[in-house]
């Protein structure tokens, strides 16, 4: 069977074997020591064997990674065997498609693997949302029981975040080497490892829903998460491994950007997306450790009784005993130290995509390139100083509220610079409304809602009212859609011809946009409205007396319209485009490096070294050249250097 030879399938087998091994190991050691196999005789099913289940989950990931072959080369190195660096189909006689189910070192394959897995996860999360939105469409519906509802919203949150992280990884893995003129990333094997560890991580997240679920929301605050059903452990593990992928992937991006740029590409001649990917990578590299650590601490509190967050017993100020003293607030600090900058790492690549697309379709230079590039860095750095604004009502010390309010509001400044610079870019252009451009513009409008609803949450007095209501849900979804989903879709449409050599159906693309954008506006404004009228966050149903049924119904309907419009996109890209027009090397007349080579790109994108000799966005300046291919190597196609304008 050829299917059985696929890395993915072997990985799943390896994972299952690893799980059984880990489970048997722990239970076996217990029995050997003469202890009962069950930890807690009051519980039934897997929950009674919680520590064994956790260890088994870790071995599941180890088994998966060995089975899929992501560590084979390293194991060989450890034994002193050098391995060739293969670029291309690894198993002779298998199809091109099979590359995507095996460990492959090409950054283009890995980028697409990331993107597709991301879209799949977003699909799973979206479907969950559709189910519980049905219950919320009208007051006092109860067909989803509260525990299932809680599991679904928690899973929706974290699976969507996983999907976004994978989407971000897809964009930066695929685009950064292309844009800086490199043939691959600095560490291709690490790149493959970083992608593949997401798969068992995502599987653990999904399995968590069926082994008891968890009722904590995606934030997983203890003490609730310390008392939640078994599923919370696989939620922790899943996030932990996806976080590991973030760290390794971003390390790769930073080294690639720092060391592999084409000759002549100084930092301020990089495409602006690379700047935002770089800023993102800095956040991912450092802050991610904190969410991993905070979840790990709850995990060990559950299985080993280490009371980091368990307030039982005397508080630490009266330490005459060693018992108790845990503090749930510590978790919130550690959690948000990652999870707030995380929001910026979701949106920065998206904002980079907008900045990348506007000049191409307006045929104009990017207005204030350096300001846009630096505002990404500013957002990333200020983002580290604002985490506690999620905790204004948490019982955090009162005097800390004011400085965090100030730093939070400061984020508005670099974000404003981006908005105004975009307007400056559009002004005086010859704007063309192709699908990618529509999505970039839609992103601006949607991100505007997200951005403008932010300051009321930043000032403490209004936040006391609004926090943890549906207002936050509306704000957050607008930020995520405007900052990630819309630009991600724009990027999908924009680079689709480059990756596949085929054009998507423009008319369906436009239909997708015109369904999705108004629907999103309705959804987002509806959520904000109900939030201001007494709708709390994360409740399974609401009272008739609140009188928000109509608005909720509109939110649900709008949600379904968005869902359907995404299905249209899937049909367009995955079915129709197979027979689409040939795209040609540069359908958008872009100045970017990757558009100067044929579509689809050759295995080694740049056989001739590209040499950067000009500015990246000099549209409209006669005779301006961005890149020349090294004269020593043969030119790839006529007009290897390009001119902006006519």
């Amino acid at each position, binding site marked *: 069977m050829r299917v059985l030879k696929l890395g993915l399938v072997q990985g799943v087998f390896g994972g299952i074997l690893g799980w059984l*091994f880990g489970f048997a*190991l*722990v239970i076996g*050691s*217990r029995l050997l*020591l003469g*202890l009962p196999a069950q930890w807690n005789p009051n519980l039934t099913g897997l929950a009674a064997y919680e520590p064994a289940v956790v*260890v088994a989950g870790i071995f599941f990931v*180890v088994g998966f990674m*060995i089975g899929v072959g992501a560590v*084979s080369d390293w*194991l*060989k190195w450890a*034994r*002193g*065997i050098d391995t060739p660096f293969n670029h291309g189909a690894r198993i002779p006689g298998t199809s091109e498609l099979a590359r995507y189910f095996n460990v492959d070192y090409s950054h283009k394959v890995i980028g697409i693997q990331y993107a597709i897995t991301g879209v799949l996860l977003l699909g799973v999360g979206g479907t969950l949302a559709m189910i519980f939105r049905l219950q919320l469409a009208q007051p006092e519906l109860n067909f989803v029981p509260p525990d299932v509802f809680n599991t679904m919203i928690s899973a929706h949150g974290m699976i969507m975040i996983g999907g976004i992280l994978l989407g971000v990884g897809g964009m930066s893995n695929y685009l950064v080497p292309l844009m800086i003129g490199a043939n691959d990333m600095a560490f291709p094997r690490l790149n493959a490892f970083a992608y593949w560890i997401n798969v068992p991580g995502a599987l653990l997240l999904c399995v968590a829903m069926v082994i008891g679920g968890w009722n904590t929301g995606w934030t997983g605050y203890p003490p609730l998460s310390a008392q939640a059903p078994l599923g919370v452990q696989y939620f922790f593990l899943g996030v932990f491994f996806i976080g590991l992928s973030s760290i390794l992937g971003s390390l790769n991006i930073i080294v690639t950007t720092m060391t592999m740029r084409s000759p002549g590409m100084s930092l301020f001649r990089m495409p602006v997306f690379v700047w935002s990917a770089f800023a993102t990578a800095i956040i991912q590299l450092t802050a991610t450790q904190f969410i991993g650590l905070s979840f790990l601490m709850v995990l060990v509190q559950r299985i*080993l009784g280490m009371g980091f967050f368990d307030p039982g017993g005397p508080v630490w100020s009266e330490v005459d005993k060693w018992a108790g003293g845990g503090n749930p607030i510590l978790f919130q600090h550690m959690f948000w130290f990652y999870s707030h900058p995380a929001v910026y790492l979701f949106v920065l690549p998206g904002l980079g995509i907008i900045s990348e697309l506007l000049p191409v379709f307006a045929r104009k230079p990017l207005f204030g390139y350096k300001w846009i590039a630096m505002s990404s860095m500013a957002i990333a750095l200020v983002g580290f100083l604002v985490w506690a604004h999620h905790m204004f009502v948490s019982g955090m010390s009162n005097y800390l509220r004011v400085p965090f309010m100030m730093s939070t509001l400061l984020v508005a400044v670099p974000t404003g610079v981006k908005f105004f610079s975009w307007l400056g870019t559009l002004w005086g252009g010859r704007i063309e409304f192709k699908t990618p451009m529509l999505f970039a513009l839609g992103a601006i409008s949607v991100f505007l809602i997200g951005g403008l609803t932010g300051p009321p949450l930043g000032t403490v007095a209004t936040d006391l009212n609004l926090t943890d209501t549906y207002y936050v849900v509306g704000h957050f979804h607008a930020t995520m859609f405007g900052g990630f989903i819309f630009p991600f879709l724009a990027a999908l449409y924009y680079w689709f011809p480059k990756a596949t050599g085929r054009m998507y159906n423009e008319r369906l693309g436009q239909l997708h946009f015109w369904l999705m954008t108004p629907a999103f506006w309705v959804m987002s404004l509806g959520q904000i409205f109900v939030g201001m009228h007494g709708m709390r966050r994360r409740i399974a149903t609401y009272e008739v007396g609140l009188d928000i049924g109509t608005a909720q119904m509109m939110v649900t309907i709008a949600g379904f319209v968005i869902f359907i419009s995404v299905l249209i996109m899937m049909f367009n890209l995955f079915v129709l485009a197979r027979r689409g027009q040939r795209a040609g090397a540069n359908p958008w007349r872009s100045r970017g490096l990757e558009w100067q080579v044929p579509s689809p790109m050759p295995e080694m994108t740049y056989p001739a070294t590209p040499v950067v000799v000009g500015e990246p966005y000099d549209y409209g300046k006669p005779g301006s050249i961005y890149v020349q291919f090294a004269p020593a190597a043969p030119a790839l196609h006529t007009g290897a250097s390009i001119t902006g304008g006519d």
Partner: protein
Amino acid sequence: MEHLFLVFIALPLVVGGAVLVGAWLLTKIMPGDAAAAKAAAAAQAAAIPAHGPDYARLTPRRKAALRTGIVVLLGLALLTIVEFFLAALGSTALMFVIIILKAALIMYFFMHIAAVWRTEEAH
């Protein structure tokens, strides 16, 4: 208390051992490896001399490096002892000064942090 022993001593050792054995087994059964493994074994069979060809030429550099190493070690030891006794003063700030000094010694001399910015290999 058996729990403690199990979780913190027996389990890590057993798990670590199992991982190593498993990884070793996997490298054995990995396809296409037999030839490479044989070649590696053959390379090992060839006697490796105790010193490389440039041993004599590089002797001054080794000696200089050994001197640096000893001085750094003595410095670290001294700082640690000072730290140990100054702890009684209860000054956290002072402790941090010593910590930073020790960290700087290790990062500069042992970890060669400067090498990150070096573009030419200085071997």
